[in-house]
């Protein structure tokens, strides 16, 4: 696969909006870099799936959506939760397993939920969120609520029956579901071409009569513009829409992963297309950002991260007496 040149060209946004995009990508990046360290210190346990390299997708797509929309995400969802509005403190506390976490420490990294933000997880079964999204969208249709249900999933999920069944249902019933595929080229360690007979994901989705769009997921401008167009279609009641964001995961699948399935050169080539540095370079070229301003922004984000870590450290454990609480409604 020959890679496209790194994202470049003018950023067609007001400075403040553009800096907001950069800031959110940076917040995800720094939060996760710190999370990886904390994993090494055994403060965070279990699985930890980092989104580093894919930040433009969550930031651009969620920016295109409305606060009242429904969000369904995967186990690689720290960034989505953060950009959606979950405080970094709450995410960090959840990853620590503390009661102050969004799910009281019961879910951990893979199960970030927030009913108020209409964030329906944090689903760690590949493809598991897709039927849920169809149902949420159906509920809105039946209740006459105009809202978009956005469902994030990886390209690995497109090999699951759940993807095909859900696309079919969504299209058949014309529900307002927005399917956002984060194609990072590897389902854990299995490359797309080794797992899919049809590697053009838009072709697969289009077979259900759903309009599709292929987007450079490393270019936040392309992501935001593509997501804006897609959500508009869904919001206008024209039925579901499928977007493939071509992106890349720079870190291991989870924390233990010798990365035998891809070569370093490929990783380096994709890093040259990194969503964060290419975007800040464009902003600098246009005079919308100086190095000093970037460093100030980075320092501000670093403070937010350290505050989140301190909050998680100071958090409390759910009492063992509450173990069986919430298995059923009280």
């Amino acid at each position, binding site marked *: 696969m020959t890679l496209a040149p790194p994202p470049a060209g003018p950023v067609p946004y007001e400075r403040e909006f553009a800096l907001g995009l950069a800031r959110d990508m940076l917040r995800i990046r720094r939060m996760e870099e710190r999370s990886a360290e904390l994993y090494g210190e055994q403060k965070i346990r279990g699985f930890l799936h980092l989104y580093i390299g894919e930040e433009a997708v969550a930031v651009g797509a969620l920016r295109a959506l409305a606060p009242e929309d429904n969000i369904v995400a995967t186990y690689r969802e720290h960034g989505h939760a953060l950009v959606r509005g979950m405080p970094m403190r709450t995410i960090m506390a959840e990853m620590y397993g503390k009661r102050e976490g969004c799910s009281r420490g019961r879910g951990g990294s893979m199960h970030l939920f927030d009913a108020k933000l209409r964030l329906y997880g944090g689903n760690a079964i590949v493809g598991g969120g897709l039927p849920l999204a*169809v149902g949420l969208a159906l*509920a809105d249709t039946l209740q006459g609520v105009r809202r978009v249900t956005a469902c994030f999933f990886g390209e690995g999920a497109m090999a699951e029956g759940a993807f095909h069944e859900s696309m079919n*249902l969504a299209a058949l019933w014309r529900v307002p579901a927005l399917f956002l595929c984060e194609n990072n080229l590897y389902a854990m360690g299995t490359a797309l071409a080794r797992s899919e007979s049809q590697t053009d994901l838009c072709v697969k989705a289009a077979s259900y009569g759903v309009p599709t769009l292929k987007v450079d997921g490393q270019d936040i401008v392309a992501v935001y513009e593509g997501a804006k167009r897609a959500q508009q279609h869904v919001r206008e009641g024209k039925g579901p829409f499928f977007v493939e964001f071509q992106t890349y995961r720079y870190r291991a699948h989870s924390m233990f992963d010798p990365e035998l399935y891809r070569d370093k050169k490929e990783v380096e080539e994709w890093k040259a297309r990194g969503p964060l540095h290419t975007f800040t370079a464009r902003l600098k070229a246009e005079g919308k950002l100086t190095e000093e301003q970037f460093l100030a922004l980075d320092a501000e984000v670093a403070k937010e991260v350290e505050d989140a870590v301190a909050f998680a450290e100071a958090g409390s454990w759910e009492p063992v007496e509450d173990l069986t609480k919430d*298995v059923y409604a009280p």
Partner: protein
Amino acid sequence: MKTSYREAMRAALREALAADPRVFLMGEDVGKYGGTYAVSKGLLEEFGPERIRDTPLSELAFVGAGIGAALGGMRPIVEVMTVNFSLLALDQIVNTAALLRHMSGGQFSVPLVIRMATGAGRQIAAQHSHSLENWYAHVPGIKVLAPATVEDARGMLAPALADPDPVVIFEHAQLYNTEGELPQNWTTDMKKAAVRRQGKDVSLITYGGSLPKTLKAADMLAREGIDAEVIDLRVLRPLDDATVMASVAKCRRAVLVDEGWRSGSLAAEVMARIVEQAFYDLDAPLARVCSEEVPMPYARHMEEAALPQPEKIVAASKGLFA
């Protein structure tokens, strides 16, 4: 009023649909076809295609969509044609519906009802004859019901819909044609097991499609001078231990009757609870009559041999008095 199990179930659906605009029914062939077992016959004409929603053969997606719709404020009733096909939806039921409340720290309710036919006895062979109620009853986070009488067929749906948690209802396919008297002032709940026949010598504990067979066995035992009590578990999760233990304390002998395969069966669970809670009330070892551990054969005599039958229940009961 005399009614059939099927009509009672339909009346319950009709009442639920009329009472609450959030309620809708979806599943394979529930609409135009009128329901595989004709339970939903006529409801499409009455409530329209939005609320009597035919689905493609996509058990995983339409059960999952039911979960999503429940999260989104609706009160879906999802009909999975039979328990055999529910295995295709097991992921959504076990990994999402059952876990969501606890895993999210109590943030989400999934007020979903899943109905499915279960059981054997109609010569439809191995892939259409499963009794897997115990698989579902194993899972914390869902509730499991097995209405076995017309009264429960009529009455259990409403409390299931009112419940904020996912409820799975098993309707034994052999029961749809059974008829019974629906009392004028019927009441029902989804909490307690029921004593279907009072007795004092042996407690026969069963549920679902095995109830009529067990009642027949009790009549046969009566002719031999053994006064059997019949307990219908009704609610398979959470189990009502108190009713079971009270019966065991009274009869001091117990036989479990369960159409599931013996190993890891619901019968095994109830037996374990009796041993834990009422061991010293027993005058004899516990016994059980389950399905033989074979795939269900097609030929009638072989299918009959594989299933619990009144004669087997009688023999097991008499064995406790040897």
